[in-house]
């Protein structure tokens, strides 16, 4: 089998295990390429039946409008249920406190809303599009990753994962984060999107946009960022390599508008994908710390 067929077959089998082992699973959908890939894999696992889970989007309120629009169209086309958790609600009610200053981002606040959505809907499994090649804390996470009732990842308590046998047994209140594309790399995802002809939000392709420089990377110039008079606005041809919320996702300069060019550009790139994420630049163990706090 070709490597994409191998990865696909493995991911489909993992999704079917989720359906078989859990009472109330959910698929975490961000509108990014990895979760869009998950949606295609779910179609392959369950069609012509319905998905045995809703899609769940934790909306920071600072998302790219193109991504939100894409999300709504996709959900309509799929005919599946979408549940949205709003970070704004958590802020308004005081359960989350907005960061201050130039580098303020709602990325970390997503965890509050995610845990609220999980609790409210009693989800026992949340499928996510994280990959092990993204970051070294991810490299050590299981495909079925058990979280306690506070959503915490405890690297010490991870279960050994043998063969393709996934142990999803949990106590009430705990839940499992499931990562069907754990073994995929960034390039695998792009090659799969190309092969399957999967639609993705337009901001992944090069476009002209007003940007400002922040900590050595280009950020979309937008009211969501705390800009001030010192911030010089440039218009550049850029594309986004990962799609998080506007305050934590940096653009890369690129003229590429075709998927083949983007694949080539990524395979030649010398900067890792998460190098364009402000949230990982905070400290060496930034991802590890966030995961322990319940981040997906």
């Amino acid at each position, binding site marked *: 089998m070709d490597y994409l067929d191998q990865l696909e077959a493995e991911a489909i089998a993992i999704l079917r295990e989720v359906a078989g082992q859990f009472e109330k699973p959910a698929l975490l959908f961000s509108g990014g390429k990895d979760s869009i890939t998950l949606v295609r894999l779910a179609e392959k696992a369950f069609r012509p039946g319905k998905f045995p889970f809703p899609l769940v989007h934790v909306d920071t309120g600072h998302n790219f409008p193109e991504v939100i629009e894409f999300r709504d169209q996709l959900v309509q086309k799929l005919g599946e249920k979408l549940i949205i958790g709003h970070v704004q609600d958590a802020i308004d009610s005081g359960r989350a406190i907005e960061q201050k200053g130039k580098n303020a981002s709602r990325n970390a606040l997503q965890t509050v809303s995610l845990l609220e959505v999980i609790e409210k809907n009693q989800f026992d499994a949340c499928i996510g599009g994280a990959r092990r090649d993204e970051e070294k804390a991810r490299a050590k996470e299981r495909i079925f990753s058990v979280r306690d009732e506070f959503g915490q990842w405890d*690297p010490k308590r991870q279960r050994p994962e043998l063969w393709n046998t996934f142990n999803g047994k949990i106590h009430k209140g705990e839940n499992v984060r499931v990562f069907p594309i754990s073994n995929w790399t960034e390039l695998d995802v792009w090659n799969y999107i190309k092969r399957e002809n999967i639609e993705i939000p337009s901001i992944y392709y090069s476009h002209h946009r007003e940007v400002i420089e922040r900590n050595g990377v280009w950020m979309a110039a937008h009211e969501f960022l705390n800009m001030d008079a010192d911030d010089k606005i440039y218009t550049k041809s850029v594309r986004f390599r990962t799609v998080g919320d506007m305050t934590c996702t940096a653009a890369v300069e690129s003229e590429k508008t075709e998927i083949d060019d983007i694949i080539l550009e990524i395979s030649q790139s010398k900067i890792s994908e998460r190098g364009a994420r402000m949230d990982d630049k905070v400290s060496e163990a930034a991802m590890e710390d966030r995961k322990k706090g319940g981040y997906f």
Partner: protein
Amino acid sequence: MDILKFLTAGSVDDGKSTLIGRLLYDTDSVLADQLEAIQKSNRKNDDGTVDLAILTDGLKAEREQGITIDVAYKYFQTEKRKFIIADTPGHIQYTRNMVTGASNADLAIILVDARKGVIEQTIRHSYLVSLLALEHVVVCVNKMDMVDYSEEVFEKIHADYHQLAIKLGIKEVTFIPVSALKGDNIVNDSINMPWYKGKSLLAHLETVPVHQVDHLLPARMAVQWVVRPQTDELHDYRGYAGRVLSGALSVGEEIKVYPSGNKSKIKRIETFDGDLQIAEEGKSITLHLEDEIDISRGDMIGEIERSPLVSNQIEADICWMDTRELDTTATYFIQHQSKVTRCKIKEVLYKVNINTLEKVNADTFGLNDIGRVEIKTADELAFDPYESNKRNGGAIIIDSRTNVTVGALMLRAAL
């Protein structure tokens, strides 16, 4: 292009981290921002070059608490193949970690220190490789630079290991003299060992044949999910979703459902991308059968001729993975493919001293112990002996109080 999954067996002292670091570095798989982090680090080799072992460094939690997480996965690719390395830390809990890593690997690299030769640890690693029935073994005789790149040293280790491989029944072994530190025969051919005519480690990894569908294996598919849309247009639709574990299933073929023994014929093999005439090992599919028979998650669909063993009394090898000892009076869960049922591990037949390979008497198992047991399950399992078809011969034991995976089973026989 396909994927090769491999694990590296060896301790820190054997240069395991350096070997993995070298593979990543010399295949240009280290990205600029990661490289920058390494160059900033104070850890350098004696000659001032960067310490490549940093590329396999652990998490903050591991450093702070002095623990190691069982397996870290690393990814790289060349023009010929994609690679997934299961990097299992070498110190405490090594058996548990290596068994976990090996269960999902196609190939094992066993590191032998050229100065030490075949030692107790080599026996231990090799035993685990044979227990998990890995198809391919590569013995990397490392630190050749410390023995003046001596052919004699290499040949001696070659001969010693050959004896061990025969004893353990390991069939395919490839020997490569390397220096992970200096880069000899890892990615680039060594200029220091002109007497070695074989391939470099990477060249071997790129070309060793894996994932060829073994047509000699019987067809098996565990039912994971029953697709029943129950809509107006698909009122009678009923599909059995699962992955072909071994062999191949084809349209028109007679099948049997285990453990019930009900028979039917394959009407259709459905995938999202269209129907198939034949579905081979590894493929995730949805089966449609001619007859309406009772099938649910946990059932095994297989060919009629070569049936699996169906039993609720099973003999198996076990690797115990929990700090709490095995309790022969307790009820555990056993998970085999999509089937989960209760079980008791009724009897410990023997324990294996994995340093000497001797079988010793034992009443129970502690963390990292390996041996043979008799299990009684509540429902029957449909399995193949691990040594003849490992794709349907492995199972796990789950503690019913903590829900933790506490044991790995290689199922051997029905009693």
